[in-house]
């Protein structure tokens, strides 16, 4: 009994003081920590992949008349890093920032506006200008054509299909199984 208490005392005293005088001294997270996501809006294409991946719906994508509005509500963020993995441009990275307490929830929100491209024939949203430009450039390199020679890039999916169906023979359902 007494030896046991002495052993316990030994454990206690050998450890010394282990708590930090936080917040008077910093607490540094280890390498690879998933803290607040950092945005690099200059890289954002407005594709919304991050929004689709986000389990907590932090990232809201809405289309206005001429612009796409990307709202990053990191007050709801669960720091899973799915958005960073989903972003094709590497525009989101996980920082080591975790001291996010604030008086105003808007401090944790960022809104970005990106120019929209609407379908030249029906006015339906096609994508953001950055998305289309990027696509045009990649296609141009791959297909070895001029970037501005693909007007159909600025058509909506429905109009593209409409035009394809107009020229293609439509199979009846029964034939489709063959």
């Amino acid at each position, binding site marked *: 009994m007494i030896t046991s*208490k002495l052993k316990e*005392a030994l454990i*206690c005293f050998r450890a010394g*003081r*282990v*708590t*930090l*005088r936080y917040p008077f001294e910093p607490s540094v997270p280890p390498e690879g920590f998933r803290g607040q996501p950092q945005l690099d809006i200059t890289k954002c294409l407005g594709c919304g992949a991050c929004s689709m991946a986000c389990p907590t719906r932090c990232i809201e994508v809405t289309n206005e008349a001429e612009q796409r509005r990307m709202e990053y509500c990191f007050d709801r963020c669960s720091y899973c890093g799915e958005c960073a993995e989903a972003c094709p441009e590497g525009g989101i990275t996980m920082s080591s920032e975790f001291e996010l307490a604030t008086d105003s929830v808007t401090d944790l929100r960022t809104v970005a506006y990106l120019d929209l491209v609407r379908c030249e024939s029906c006015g339906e949203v096609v994508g953001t200008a950055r998305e289309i430009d990027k696509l045009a450039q990649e296609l141009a390199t791959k297909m070895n054509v001029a970037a501005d020679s693909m007007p159909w890039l600025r058509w909506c999916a429905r109009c593209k299909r409409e035009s394809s169906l107009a020229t293609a023979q439509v199979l009846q359902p029964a034939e489709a199984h063959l």
Partner: protein
Amino acid sequence: MTVWLVVGGVVQVGLVLLLAPLFEGLMRKLVRARIHSREGPPIWQPYYDLFKLLVKEDTQPAAGWVYLLPSVLCLASVLTASLLVPLFGRGILGEQGDAILFIYLMAASVAAVVLAGAMSGSPYSSVGFAREIMMTLTVEPVLIMALITAAIDAGSLDLGAMAAWHSAHGPSLSMLIAAFALLLSVQAQVGKLPFDVPEADQEIMGGPFIELSGPKLALFKWAFWAKQLVLAALLVQVFVPWPTFTLGLAGSAALGAALCALVALVKVLVVVVVVAVVDAVNPRLRLDQAMAYFVAVIFVAGIGLILAFVGT
């Protein structure tokens, strides 16, 4: 003489009130936190706690001064008891009261806790004050028997006379046993682990104190901290009164008294540290286990008593 009594009394009560939270703060920071391997709160934290509670709104089930009674009674009886403890030869109220009064005052402080518990309708509180009564039944006899042992030794019920006799006659076996038994009971008297059964935060959420808030809670806390000091002082002054410097080193009575006070303070600190260490390294016992323990302590104290009769 009366004026001297009043001034001395006020000064001593003031000192007890001022020092009690300091001892608690020191124990929290230097003993408890150290054993917990953590930084710990500032030494002044108990003062902040008291101040916070004292200025807080006092919520109570019904209006009436009667609800304030237990907390005031508790603190008042402890402070009065402090005036009986022989610090310099004799307690300030040493003329007026003896060991019997001291025992009564200690019992009154326990009665105040029971009263506070009984005033609340909470079942936790009922369990708490029932436990407090049960604990007192086994803890109080230890104090009584220790003091009787000293009284037999000294042939007087006067606490000052006991101290004087012990300091004059040197250590005796009966006195050491009585001191040891008393030391074991201090833990329970001041509601420290492993004997804080009546409060048992994790079981009955503070027991008798569950519905107390603000100033009333502050007074109870203050009373318990002061009680720890008073009991520790009683223990060291009556049972372990050496070394004494009443004769003076260089013939100066004032220097002797100052040295006496310093030594007393150090001894009290040692007792308080022991209490704090025991508190930190034990889990809480169950009521039946705690009572069984104190029955054993009573037995030990009984041996001391018999030895005192025999004269060793």
